[in-house]
């Protein structure tokens, strides 16, 4: 696809001009109108209280992450034998020992690495947007994009539980029940997705711009 670089009608952000683009239909309208004249969605230059909301959802997801890892995600009931409760990490270790490496790695990446990286990334983004960490807007924007795209894949373990519970109903052999961690883990994924959605990436560029302005002022002061 050919690329065409758009021309700014005048330099500066849309917010400075009192304009906002609709998050649903992309129509640009004055923020003062409050609702998009085209699709009726709520208009805002910056998502309201973005950092607070993102942090609240992030903290909730971190809390849910504890039972998601401590409690069993699947309970295997060997009829005639005992029952065996599997945690997420326990499952990964079992499959590693069984030499089922693709399964072990997929579950480890989707259930452990992605959620943790996503939480760290969102924490970092909030810190950067709040001005506590120095930032490079372009790189952070890319990280934000990554959290939005990759986060959903964590849900894979919940679906694995759904499939296993349904399939392993082999009467006299064994039965699999979903454990409490399945719901907790689904909660973690949904909460981090909501956290990413309530984050406002444009806050990062506001910071970057403010930083450049300050730097310029400081330099002018020196001269």
């Amino acid at each position, binding site marked *: *696809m050919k690329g065409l670089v758009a021309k700014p009608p005048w330099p500066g*952000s849309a917010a400075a001009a009192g304009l906002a683009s609709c998050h649903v*239909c992309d129509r640009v309208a004055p923020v003062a109108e409050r609702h998009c004249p085209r699709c009726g969605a709520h208009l805002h230059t910056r998502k309201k209280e973005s950092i607070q909301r993102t942090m609240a959802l992030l903290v909730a997801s971190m809390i849910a992450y504890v039972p998601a890892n401590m409690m069993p995600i699947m309970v295997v009931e060997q009829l005639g034998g005992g029952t065996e409760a599997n945690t997420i990490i326990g499952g990964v270790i079992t499959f590693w020992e069984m030499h089922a490496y693709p399964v072990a790695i997929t*579950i480890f990446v989707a259930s452990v690495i992605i959620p943790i990286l996503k939480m760290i990334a969102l924490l970092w983004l909030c810190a950067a947007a709040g001005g506590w960490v120095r930032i490079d807007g372009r790189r952070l924007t890319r990280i934000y994009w990554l959290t939005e795209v990759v986060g959903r894949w964590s849900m*894979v373990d919940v679906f694995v539980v759904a499939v*296993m519970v349904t*399939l392993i109903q082999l009467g006299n052999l064994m039965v699999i029940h979903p454990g409490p961690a399945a719901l907790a883990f689904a909660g973690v994924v949904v909460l981090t997705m909501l956290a990413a959605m309530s984050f406002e990436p*444009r806050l990062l560029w506001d910071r970057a711009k403010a930083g450049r302005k300050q730097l310029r002022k400081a330099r002018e002061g020196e001269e």
Partner: protein
Amino acid sequence: MSGGAGCGNGDEVKHLEAWPRVEREQLAVCHFCDALHEAPAVEEGTAVVCSNCGSALYRNQPASLDRAVAFGMAALLLMVVAQGFPFISLSANGMVSGMTLTGASLSLAREGSHLLAAGVAFCTMIAPSALAAGLVYVCLPLRWGKAWPGARGVALWLYRLEPWAMVEVFFLGAVVSLLKLVKLADVSIGVAFWALGAVMFCLAAAIAGIDRRELWDRLEVALQK
């Protein structure tokens, strides 16, 4: 504004021009860095990018309406196939157990995990089907420059629903489960498995087929008539 004639007799005319737009000052704002830009009408196969951060502002996809409608309809049909046929079946020691897509949610509900069952049903069946149906409902009449009743509301909900349609993630989950089960029993893959794989592809192609700015610009023109 150019391109108004292109959509009426779309069968003969090659869509090499811009999509129809309502006449006003056309602006675009970068969703990442908030830089304000003029939004020129572009011909098919052109993406307009932000001058500040380089991310795409919008793009004119070739044959966008046809693609959205065709892939959307295909996704819906395949979804029906995926519901009606076995997904995976498993046999061990003479016992056979099968599974359908609906069965996955139902068995979770039977185990008492109603919330989880509802979530799985929503992400794997309800959201993807609604997404495909909504896209067809909006885009099909747009081919003739028309809008069916409630099209504005449908389009509004389309984009809110999008992140929650997780067919591809469920598909990966099914593959992982298969790899787990191969060691335990004889596993056979059913028609629904391939159907769902195709749903995954069609849904992604349908959504990527039309830029939302184009969809809304066309819808706005249609609603003004």
